[in-house]
């Protein structure tokens, strides 16, 4: 071995007589410093000179120890220089250091926890006050001390979303990142799913949004679980209706109405959504349930009137709409609808509560109205393709029976009523596609046509 005496593992050399190699030569040989010091800059030279001095000093110390050992004066120290013994000593030192760092770590983590909690509580105050910029900063500060704290992240995401919704935030990116991270940790968290659903819906990712909404509906909520789930479902239905997924919306609404309590406001809200989903049967039923608890609920009356109108149940619609207008005469929409309803009722020759003479008169009027519509709409007088080849055009049909369509003619030929009304309905349908939505009597006739589609 040509290393430094007293520093070698190999041969327990420290018990043999120390070598007589001069220290300076050993250091130079061992380090190569003589070759490198010359090229050092000021700082480097100081650095290496210091290192060299320590190096030399340790060599001297070893030599002295070796001499003492050789003289047999240091038996105890001899044992302590045995590597296993030293290893045991190091182990003890490491254990002590470990305990020390544990204590330090507790103090460190406790301090960080306290700082995090302090910033978080400030953030919560600002979040409640809708002071979103301050809340964002405070929750960011809280997260400096507890980066993975679930609540801090969720609150920061809420604050960021608040900021964005208030028009001050740049994008959903950061909030979304936090929420996705939280979702990965707790996929069943209701609020996280709901917020993710809102973000994805906002970004036009409907499929993702619907998935998150469903998860939110079935999720675990920390408090007021039933109401939170219901609200999430309401948002889901709203989204479904916005993207015209009416069938899915209706299914969700049915589930919602089954679980809904007897709260009239809730019933009315569900009914309105059924109405938007064009499920008028369920809408009418829901409005009726709402009216059971408060028969003077004007919006429920108006809604029920609208649902009944859409179902073609015009007498019922008239009843509800009249009641609604009695409570709120300024309800223009209901007033318009009532007007149309009454026009339909006054135009419909198939009503059961009218006499034959009245029916014949109404049929003649309908025929005249349809004729006027044909003319005003300028329907071409050509043959039209039909199941049996080219058929006469509506103008020709109208002209062909015009002479027969009188009150007397209808009395003579009871079957003529159906022929007349069939032609009237076809004219109104055709002209509505050709010339746009009808008004007045034409609208009434079209609605009557639609209400009779099922029966025909």
């Amino acid at each position, binding site marked *: 071995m040509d290393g430094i005496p007293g520093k070698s593992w190999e041969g327990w050399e420290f018990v043999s007589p120390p070598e007589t190699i001069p220290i300076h030569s050993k250091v130079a040989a061992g380090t190569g410093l003589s070759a*490198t010091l010359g090229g050092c800059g000021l700082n480097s030279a100081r650095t290496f000179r210091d290192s060299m001095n320590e190096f030399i000093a340790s060599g001297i110390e070893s030599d002295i120890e070796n001499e003492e050992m050789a003289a047999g004066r240091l038996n105890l120290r001899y044992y302590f220089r045995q590597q296993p013994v030293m290893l045991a000593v190091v182990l003890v030192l490491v254990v002590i250091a470990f305990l020390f760092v544990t204590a330090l770590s507790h103090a460190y983590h406790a301090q960080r926890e306290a700082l995090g909690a302090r910033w978080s509580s400030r953030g919560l105050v600002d979040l409640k006050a809708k002071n979103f910029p301050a809340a964002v900063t405070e929750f960011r500060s809280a997260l400096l001390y507890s980066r993975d704290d679930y609540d801090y992240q969720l609150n920061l995401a809420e604050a960021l979303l608040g900021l964005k919704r208030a028009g001050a935030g740049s994008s959903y990116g950061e909030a979304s990142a936090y929420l996705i991270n939280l979702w990965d940790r707790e996929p069943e968290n209701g609020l996280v799913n709901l917020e993710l659903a809102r973000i994805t819906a906002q970004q036009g990712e409907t499929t993702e949004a619907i998935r998150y909404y469903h998860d939110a509906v079935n999720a675990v909520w920390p408090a007021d679980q039933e109401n939170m789930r219901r609200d999430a479902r309401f948002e889901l239905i709203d989204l479904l209706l916005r993207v015209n997924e009416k069938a899915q919306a209706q299914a969700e609404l049915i589930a919602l109405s089954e679980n809904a309590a007897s709260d009239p406001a809730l019933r009315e809200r569900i009914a309105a959504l059924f109405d938007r989903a064009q499920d008028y049967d369920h809408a009418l039923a829901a409005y009726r349930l709402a009216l059971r608890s408060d028969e003077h609920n004007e919006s429920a009356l108006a809604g029920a009137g609208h649902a009944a109108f859409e179902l073609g149940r015009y007498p019922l619609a008239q009843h509800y709409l009249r009641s609604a207008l009695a409570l709120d005469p300024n309800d223009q929409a209901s007033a318009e609808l009532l007007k149309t309803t009454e026009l339909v009722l006054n135009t419909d020759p198939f009503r059961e509560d009218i006499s034959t003479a009245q029916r014949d008169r109404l049929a003649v009027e309908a025929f005249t109205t349809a004729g006027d519509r044909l003319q005003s709409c300028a329907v071409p007088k050509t043959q039209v393709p039909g199941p049996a080849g080219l058929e006469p055009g509506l103008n020709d049909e109208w002209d062909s029976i015009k002479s027969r369509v009188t009150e007397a003619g209808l009395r003579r030929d009871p079957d003529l009523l159906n022929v007349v009304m069939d032609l009237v309905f076809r004219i109104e349908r055709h002209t509505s596609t050709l010339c746009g939505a009808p008004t007045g009597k034409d609208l009434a006739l079209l609605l009557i046509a639609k209400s009779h589609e099922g029966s025909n």
Partner: protein
Amino acid sequence: MNSPANSASDVLVVNGQPEPEPEIAVRGLTRTILREEHFFLILSVFIGISSGLAVVCFRFAIDWARLYLLGTGAVLSPIRLILAPTLAGLVIAFLVIHFFPATRGSGVNQTKAALYIFNGHIPFRTAIGKFITAALAIGSGHSLGPEDPSLQIGASLASALGRKMRLSRDRMRLIAPVGAAAGLAAAFNAPISAVLFVIEEVIGRWTAGILGSVVLSAVSSVVVMRWFLGSESLFRIPAVELKRPSELLAYAILGVIGGLASVAFSSGIVALRPRCKALPRWTQYFQPAIAGLLIGIIAVLGAPQVMGAGYEYIDQAMHGQFTWEFLAILAGLKIIATLLSFVSGTPGGMFAPTLFIGAMLGAAVGGVQHTLLPQLTGSPATYALVGMGVLFAGFLRAPMTSVFMVLEVSGNYSIIVPVLVANTFAYLISRGLQPIAIFDVLTRQDGLELPSMEEQREEDVLQVEDAMHPLEDPVLDGEKTVEQALRDAERAKSDHLLVKRSPSGWSLVTKEELRTLAADGKRDTSLGSLLPILYVPFLHPDHPLETALRYVDRYPLVPVISRADFRQLEGVITERDVLERYREFGEG
């Protein structure tokens, strides 16, 4: 020095007296149980644990320094932003100049110096000094990172332990890298990257003995670090993805930009560091403070993100919280801030700033790409991660580590293709424009000549085929008679002739020996039966040329044979061939 441990008698003598019995027993027992390599492995675990504990304390110290110097909030007051790094700079300068001169810089080169110059010796005072000054610097907002100081603290602790354990010189030399790996692994929370970095940049070679110790220490330190600080990575990693293969073009562009940024960064250091060091000595008291002041001004003007290691901002960049314009500005400002801190001699590391710059550049390129082709672009996190690897490859010039670092940090192997593409571009551009790696430049600026790992990797290795020459003389057949062999030998120019033996092997014979055999009446005997059993060693063409040196002094010519057919001679090599080739190689 002789080695008594190797002798069989083992009755050690102390000044001529037999050693006391119990000591012999202890020695015998320990020698039986603990061979040095086993002991070294156990010691590596202790080094890992100690380094882990030290790094944990170092992290605490940095955080506490930040809390008390800069404040507790995410938004910091301008007065503190200016004063903290400035005043800390003054204190650091005083400490470094008067107490801890060896703590300047990052610590990687000091560890290499310990390995190659000081036989593994790093003063323990260096660890203490590095701990205090680097914690103060990073905590006060200087643009430096904790990884390189952790590496040096680990190396210093390991060196101290090694000295106390009286390891052999060879082991002592290796102990600093073992500690360095432990320190770096704990600081990075990435044992694989730490091991690779130490092997790639400090030790420069792979052997089972070194690898075992380095891995053990790295793993031990990471376990300790996670015990106290949790296993979370330095930043939250969102989902990373490569959306389409065409996106690789964007990653190639990122590699080019990263390579250029690396060159700008390292050129700045190379140019400014000697100038700062050449300034009058009294200015060294103020250089870190001036750097701190300038960094504080940058922070007050709107970019506090450049202060400190900046991991929290890497995290934010990954989560798309900055616009691409701001990300690009941050990358540029971080280069300036890190240059200021580093060239002023403030102790601290360059790993974290490198990662910061890379992440910002990557996320900026991702942002531009997203603006231009939103459907084709992956998440900003993917670009930021790749960007980190790019700067690591381009600036630190550790290509292997750069790839594995990204994989280890992201935990996602699907990112490997973009990382490889981008890192390759960055590395090649950096090497092309800045031929000497930054650590080597720094070493040479300090007047040292440590081996350059990059140069070693790139060095041409001479092989036997570069020196061998075809055999002009006939090859004798061992199956033939001496008379036939002599007839063939007479046509040869050389006195030494190769003999092909059966079933395999080669021998040498001289013409004189053949003549003697013939004169002894063995003309009709087969040559093979008369030659000694000891065969001539042979080489293959792909053997390193230095392998030939083992034989050419003992044999006048050594056969070079095919690996596919051991009886097929490719050529021969002589001592002269080898020396000639080395001479030509040396002359370039």
